């Protein structure tokens, strides 16, 4: 039984085994590739040079792979992102800097380097107060300009192909609030300035709920997955204790996911780096159905354990180690890693295979090929 691409993804996310595990490159969140690795891949595959398409801002240097490459690896998913709005365009403040609609300053250290957020409107406040949120011009969440052309493009894809479609919403409450307040500063506010931290996250959530609402009212019926990104872990532990998450961040995640849930039947995918094992029960509780990228070498993120403990409630999207195996292993090592994932995360469905986060510059093309070709050849599972 050979399934169509979309059918395969839908069944897998429904916890059903499929003819082979679905594979992703460039469709779901954090599944793109560094331009250097991509160009090496093109050469390796004997494909002609391409004009590179930059991936979304804020993720470092990444490019969107072309249809030629995606079809070579029989990739099952195609992804969409929200655009900017012409109502509040980025304001250039220099040759290598701009301010975005949130009032966040972005800079790049060289012409070829990616833009990084360097300063936010609330970052310098010593004693932040809820009142400080008032005079700020907040983005208009439900501005439909962000999704112009999206329905037509998705309908075209539906009519002419059988790929699964994922709408990748941008960074969510905590990460966005960190951009506005400062990466470390917001962590401290969670304990020292709780009224401010709550009010800030509420305002941010208002905006992103507006964005999600206008997007999903438009395309919610066309998509198979909707993702949002909010890192909640470092290598060794979660960003915060379970109790602090529950009191200070979870309510905002809950409201946001409820907004998504009300407007689409697509699977709800959360992107979070790091060791988030401890928070998974709470993420399931707010309505997350799929986690990405599944950073398997972070503390407590052993894939067998994750599947055993959470496999009934969660699907997994990612899993192929990018810290050691993909960049430094041999193609045979990569093939072994893939086979392990097909077994530990793939049995009983519930798995879409991809790299753990974007493929970095030094990953040899042979390893990219080994990753996908092993998955394609393996069938429902490795053994």
């Amino acid at each position, binding site marked *: 039984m050979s399934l169509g691409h979309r059918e395969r993804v839908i069944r897998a996310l429904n916890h059903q085994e499929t003819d082979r595990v679905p594979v992703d490159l460039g469709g779901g969140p954090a599944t793109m590739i*560094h331009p250097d690795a991509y160009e090496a891949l093109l050469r390796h595959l004997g494909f002609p040079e391409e004009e590179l398409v930059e991936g979304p801002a804020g993720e*470092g240097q990444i490019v969107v792979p072309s249809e030629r490459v995606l079809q070579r690896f029989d990739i099952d998913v195609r992804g969409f992102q929200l655009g900017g709005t012409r109502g509040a365009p980025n304001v250039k403040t220099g040759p290598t800097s701009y301010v975005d609609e949130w009032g966040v300053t972005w800079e790049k*250290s060289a012409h070829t380097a990616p833009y*990084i957020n360097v300063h936010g409107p609330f970052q310098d406040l010593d004693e932040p107060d809820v009142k400080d949120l008032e005079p700020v011009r907040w983005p208009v969440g439900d501005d439909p300009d962000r999704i112009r052309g999206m329905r037509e493009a998705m309908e075209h894809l539906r009519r002419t192909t059988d790929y699964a479609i994922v709408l990748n919403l941008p960074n969510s409450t905590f990460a966005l609030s960190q951009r506005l307040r400062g*990466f*470390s500063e917001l*962590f*401290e506010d*969670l*304990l*020292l300035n709780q009224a401010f931290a709550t009010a800030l996250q509420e305002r941010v959530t208002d905006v992103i709920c507006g964005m999600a609402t206008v997007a999903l009212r438009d395309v919610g019926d066309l998509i198979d997955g909707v993702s949002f990104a909010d890192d909640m872990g*470092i*290598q*060794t*532990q*979660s*960003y*915060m*204790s379970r109790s*602090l998450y529950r009191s200070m961040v979870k309510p905002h995640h809950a409201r946001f996911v409820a907004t998504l849930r009300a407007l689409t039947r697509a699977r709800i995918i959360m992107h979070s780096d790091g060791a988030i094992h401890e928070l998974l029960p709470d993420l399931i509780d707010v309505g997350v159905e799929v986690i990405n990228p599944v950073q398997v070498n972070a503390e407590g993120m052993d894939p067998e354990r994750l599947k055993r403990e959470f496999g009934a409630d969660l699907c997994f999207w990612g899993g192929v180690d*990018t*810290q*050691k195996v993909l*960049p*430094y292993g041999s193609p045979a090592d990569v093939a072994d890693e893939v086979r392990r994932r097909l077994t530990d995360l793939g049995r009983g469905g519930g798995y879409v295979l991809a790299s753990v986060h974007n493929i*970095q*510059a*030094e990953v040899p093309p042979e390893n990219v090929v080994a990753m996908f070709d092993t998955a394609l050849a393996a069938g429902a599972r490795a053994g």
Partner: protein
Amino acid sequence: MADLQALTSAIEAGDRATAARVTNEAIGDGMDPKAILGAMVAAMAEVGRRFQCNEAYVPEMLISARAMKEATALLTPVLVGAGIRPLRTAVIGTIRGDLHDLGKNLVGMMWRGANIEVIDLGTNVAPARFAEAAKEHGADLVGISALLTTTMGGMREAVAAVRAADIPGVKIIVGGAPVTTEFATQIGADAYAPDAATAVDVAKALVNIS
């Protein structure tokens, strides 16, 4: 007499107001500045222990570090006046091409908490800059951090640059999610530390402080 245990507890709890108050009291009472400093260092050692056991997380670490920083600022003039210097000097930074700084910042906080003077070069630091800064400050320790595998090559260059600068007795520690002991050895670093709390033990062992 000021209660130094209250100072320790305040830093452990991230209570900067109490930490500052008790520090001022202790200074006003003419207490031995080394003892006051010792109470602060003990607090950060406990915070580091809690972080390692997942009893404390990043938010708790950061507010403790802030309380320590504010208390230290009050004590520094007294220490300087008494000719008491930090035990060692360290230069830290995130390697060229990499902008992640949480791990580096936590190491900096923990090393300051252990009474090591820390010069933080920030992120995206060129290999040569580590050597230059280490030489300029007479560093005993150089700490280099990376989160991206792509940037690890720069760590090799940074180690080579520091070695070439011939700084007597300098020790190099590397860390960051993709870094390993093997990699540290391969590139000629003196040690690898997997997290900020361990980085204190590793540093102390390398530069002979207890």
